[in-house]
């Protein structure tokens, strides 16, 4: 050891606690229990995810180079993460050169303060918003409201969630947990000047929302957007959406403020070729998304004349510092993993307690916001998966989510104290470290036959194993283990007979 202490590398800060939606109030199993009890929610989510899933399979199947595209997407993203600082500086320089202003926000608090000040400077007390995961993550709407500024969500599903005083339940389809009669009730209750005879015909519901929103587009002078991509080479920001409401926000107001997670940068304009094929097919199951809007700085006399880009860290550097976990930053927020996840399908998004639900959320959220405390709900997220692997198969940029879940479980256990589970695992490890001890353990397991009794099955065990026996039996252990049979006269005779059988 050298006598000079070089110090430990500083751990980059996680997203701060107490602001933003990166931590629920309950652990996943408890939160899931409430959601599982809601039969309507399960029907709504089951129907929607199965529909999108089938559409996605159809449109990805028709591309002969789909697997190559996935590889390309993964390669570009991996490259981005390996030289993120350089690309971000390039993006900043390009945005500034085209008349935009760039702000760096270390966390949610800084980003909220920057945006609030920018809106205040315009004198407006209203803003219109394009659906944005990043601003949800930092709880921007609530922060603006507390400062006397009202934010109107313009994405139809986001609007439904906002008017319903609810939280989104899905990355792509935030109101996936609502059906149309619920939406009708929300509109009747919350929208001024809505026709009291409004029925639940989707066309009529959309028309009511359009009337409400059109007024906002024409009068509100400030818009806030997220960004699906930020091109380092040109300083171009891009948003893909389905309704055109985002395009209204991006073109009508005088001031445009974009909040972008730093991982959304891509090196070149040409890279969009890959992602604009991967994203819509993976998310909505469409060959192409209806509206792709791209803007580069300020164009005099056309569109917003004041453009600000807020680059948000909020735990991303901390995730990047994890050699294994950083893969989660490759996510392009398509939600394909949610739609194929059997756990998400049953519990919906709220059980995850984060802006980012489902499999990707289960690995991204704990990395952004931490999972340190014993009672931290985020520490239960890596365990909220049966590791079936459907998410990995569906991911357009090939994020190995099951392996990331296993890695985060490892990290969680490393940080935890020695409890009952650790003791049981240790005991199992010792018992299975040699055949001699394992054979003894098998003898002990044979006692299960006594517990099982005449029924030949075990139907009740104490906690935590009651979690199993609440719904499932365990068969009585067999009278003879495999190795006992193998070493028995009967076993040898059976193998000899099989050999003879084969010779015939």
């Amino acid at each position, binding site marked *: 050891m050298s006598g000079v202490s070089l110090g430990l590398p500083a751990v980059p800060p996680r997203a701060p606690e107490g602001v933003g939606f990166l931590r629920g109030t309950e652990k996943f199993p408890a939160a899931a229990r409430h959601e*599982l009890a809601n039969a309507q929610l*399960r029907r709504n989510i089951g129907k929607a995810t199965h529909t999108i899933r089938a559409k996605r399979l159809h449109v990805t199947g028709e591309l002969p180079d789909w697997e190559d595209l996935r590889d390309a997407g993964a390669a570009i993203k991996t490259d981005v993460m390996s030289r993120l600082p350089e690309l971000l500086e390039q993006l900043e320089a390009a945005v500034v050169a085209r008349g935009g202003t760039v702000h760096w926000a270390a966390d949610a608090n800084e980003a909220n303060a920057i945006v609030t000040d920018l809106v205040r400077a315009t004198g407006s007390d209203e803003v219109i918003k394009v659906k944005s995961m990043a601003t949800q993550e930092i709880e921007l709407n609530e922060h603006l409201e507390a400062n006397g500024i009202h934010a109107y969500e313009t994405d139809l599903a986001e609007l439904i969630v906002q008017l319903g005083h609810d939280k989104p339940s899905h990355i792509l389809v935030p109101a996936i947990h609502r059906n149309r009669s619920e939406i009708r009730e929300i509109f009747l209750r919350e929208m001024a000047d809505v026709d009291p005879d409004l029925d639940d015909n989707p066309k009529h519901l959309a028309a009511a929302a359009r009337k409400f929103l059109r007024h906002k587009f024409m009068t509100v002078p400030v818009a806030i957007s997220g960004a699906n991509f930020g091109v380092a080479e040109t300083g171009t920001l891009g948003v893909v959406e389905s309704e055109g409401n985002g395009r209204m926000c991006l073109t009508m107001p005088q001031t445009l403020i974009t909040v972008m997670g730093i991982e959304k940068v891509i090196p070149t304009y040409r890279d969009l070729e890959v992602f604009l094929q991967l994203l819509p097919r993976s998310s909505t199951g469409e060959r192409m998304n209806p509206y792709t809007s791209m803007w580069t700085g300020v164009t005099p006399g056309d569109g917003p004349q004041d453009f600000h880009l807020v680059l948000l860290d909020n735990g991303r550097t901390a995730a990047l510092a994890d050699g294994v976990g950083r893969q989660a930053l490759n996510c392009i927020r398509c939600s394909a993993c949610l739609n194929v996840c059997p756990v998400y399908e*049953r519990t919906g998004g709220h059980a995850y307690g984060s802006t980012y639900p489902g499999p990707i959320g289960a690995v991204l959220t704990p990395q952004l916001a931490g999972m340190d405390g014993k009672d931290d709900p985020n520490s239960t997220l890596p365990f909220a998966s049966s*590791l079936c*692997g459907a998410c990995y198969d569906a991911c357009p940029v090939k994020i190995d989510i099951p392996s990331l879940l*296993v890695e985060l479980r490892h990290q969680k256990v490393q940080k935890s104290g020695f409890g009952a589970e650790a003791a049981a695992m240790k005991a199992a*490890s010792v018992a299975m470290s040699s*055949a001699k001890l394992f054979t003894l353990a098998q003898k002990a397991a044979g006692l299960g036959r006594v517990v099982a009794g005449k029924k030949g099955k075990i139907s009740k065990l104490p906690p935590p194993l009651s979690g199993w026996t609440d*719904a499932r039996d365990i068969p009585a252990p067999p009278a003879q283990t495999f190795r006992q049979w193998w070493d028995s006269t009967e076993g040898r005779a059976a193998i000899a007979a099989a050999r003879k059988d084969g010779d015939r």
Partner: protein
Amino acid sequence: MRIAMFATCLGDTMFPDAPRATALLLTRLGHEVVFPPGQTCCGQMHVNTGYQPDALPLVENYAENFGDGSIDAIVAPSGSCVGSVRHQHEIVADRYGTPALCGRVETVKAKTYELSELLVDVLGVTDVGANFPHRVTYHPTCHSLRMLGVGDKPLQLLRAVRDIDLVELPAADACCGFGGTFAIKNAETSTAMLADKIRNVADTGAEFCCASDSSCLMHIGGGMSRLQMGTRTIHLAEILAATESMEVTA
């Protein structure tokens, strides 16, 4: 071929019919089956629950017991355990083992196969001469399907079985909800997944629900037993080992 049998801890202790059928089947096909008696468990439970250091002795034990150079192939009647050997042992060895262990893990991993992979890819056989006059539906377990990518190999084998009435399972590739300790840590969600799986099995009217992982079968079978359904679970190896002269004792 000289084939070493990895019975798996669960197969050895709770479901010996699966390794027994595997050994009889491969012997009947003319191969020499050996059972390294020092074997125990692949350590998947430890890795998947977050206890990687505790998996190290199990990874070492596996590499030691199956490292014999005279062994041509290692077979396990479990996609899940083979998945662990193939994808997880090196993670544990890299992190906590010696360079020598890493080398042994690489060697052993390359020879370890799930039963249907061994039969179709290595031994080049799909018709194993089995006879099973029953209505059967097949559940492709997640780890064999996605971690190993066995594709339709188990179905190729089942289709070649004499007198079998093979019926398609609706939503076959959906997870049954087992997931190891997931079934206990997230018992309600696991049960909700199981309920759908069992409903789909029931809809087929099959006498047997077949899979190539005893753990998933234990889960599905445990649920069906609670509901007192008549459908039984059976390991793929047991069907493939069944000949006209044999009685199935599932």
